[in-house]
């Protein structure tokens, strides 16, 4: 059945609604770190921060890949064909990239603190 983009956003919003407060706290913390970095000394060690954020993102991707079937009350035996494996890999990749971007400012901050 046809579905508009606004419907898709509404469905995404309703699925995230139960996690509203944890997500809000996470985003506020993220924002606080970004502001702290923006107001801090230059140059920022962005590359060294990324070197730390990348493995964190990779770990998140591996965790999602390993745990997603169990979180959905299934197991790897339930996955069948490119559709399921592709979906799982896309989900893991998406989670990994998201975590990497979230971790990057923290990693930069950590590098700065240790410099």
């Amino acid at each position, binding site marked *: *059945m046809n579905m*508009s983009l*606004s419907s898709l956003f*509404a469905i995404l919003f309703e699925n995230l609604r139960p996690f509203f407060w944890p997500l809000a706290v996470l985003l506020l913390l993220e924002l606080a770190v970004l502001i702290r970095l923006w107001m801090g000394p230059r140059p920022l060690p962005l590359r060294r921060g990324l070197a730390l954020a990348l493995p964190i993102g990779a770990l998140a991707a591996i965790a999602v890949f390993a745990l997603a079937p169990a979180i*959905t009350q299934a197991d790897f035996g*339930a996955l*069948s064909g490119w*559709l399921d494996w592709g*979906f799982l890999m896309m989900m893991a990749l998406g989670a990994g990239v998201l975590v990497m971007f979230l971790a990057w400012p923290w990693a930069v901050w950590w590098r700065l603190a240790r410099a």
Partner: protein
Amino acid sequence: MWALGPLAGWDRAEARLKTSARIVIAGAGAAGIALANRLSRALEGASITIVDARERHLYQPGLTLVANGYWSSEKVIDRNERFLPSTVRWVKAAVAEFDPDANRIVTEQGEAIPYDFLCVATGLKVDYASVEGMEAGLIGRNGIACVYDNPEHAGRSWEAIRAFAEKGGKAIFTRPPGGIKCAGAPLKMAMLVEDRLRREGARDRAHFHYAVAGKGLFSQPEINEFLKKHFPERGIDIHWEHRLVAIDPARKIASFATPAGRVEMDYDLIHVVPKMRAPDALANSPLAWQSGEFADDGRWLEVDRHTLRHPRYPNVFGAGDCVGTPIGKTAATVKAHVPVVVKNLLAAIADREGEGRFNGYTSYPLLIGRGRAILVEFDYELKMVPSFSFISPYEIHWLPWVMKEKLLHGAYEAVLRGRA
């Protein structure tokens, strides 16, 4: 593939229609609440009243997961109050009478509520009395399960299923004639219980039987053919034209009406699916079908199958399980019904011809076992109408299970809020 339409839905793209019309919505289930939300956003100055005594809102698509131990009952219980817009008046009473000739409904407390337009969304009644010896209080006792109606029944069914999984024996799953809520649920129950026993290494201790009142397992022909092969492959014996007519809980005997006469079968677990029909107030009103298959079946609400408008009372519309149309008493159908009713109701208020057309869309994530499902979507013509071109409706996958287990509850709430 989902057609990605404009960013704004039609309801936000169009200006609000000014009217002083009195609109009454009978029923605060999924269809009633979705109608209330969409109408309150689309209309300015209208008086919208929703009439229902129920304070709880039940996410009924989750009941099969509750009845098989995958979800707790709490996960499917919410409050209607949380979804109803503040501009809508909520009369907390059951509808006792529909009086379309006088353009009013009467509540059980005797309050008469007049209307200019009526939306009937009462849902349906599970008619336990259609099976002699059956009553709702028996669910969970003496090996009796029934996934329908509420999470308490589903939770008690899970207790009966768990006890059966420990001991094994003979399990019978039944399917009555006529229209029922989520026609895939009896099939899902049989397959999920069979899958559980297989996983627990207890499959060889159990015999599975599926007793169906008609000559098919599913209305969509290709899925019907698939299931006719799939059930025997899993050792589920199909008994055609076996209509459950009586149950003796003390002796654990079920009686079936068949073309060869009455047949008795003993059981250790039975999933009873009683006949379903329109609630009494609707069934006994002039709004119900007066003749034909939908009158004989469950005295469902008479509507034009495409416009969802009553042919004899043009200021009456219907949505959800109570309407007498050929297929689809599912939440997915509600999602498709509601925009059509709103579109045609707005046109009626503006004294225009409504352009909303319902194509019969219905959808079932047919759960084959833990973690595996088929996403089945079809229309009045029984043609597959997949929302996602990359998900085959003929293949068993994990992805439709993920949708059922994790995503559809959010989609359902978006429908309730009139946003999807």
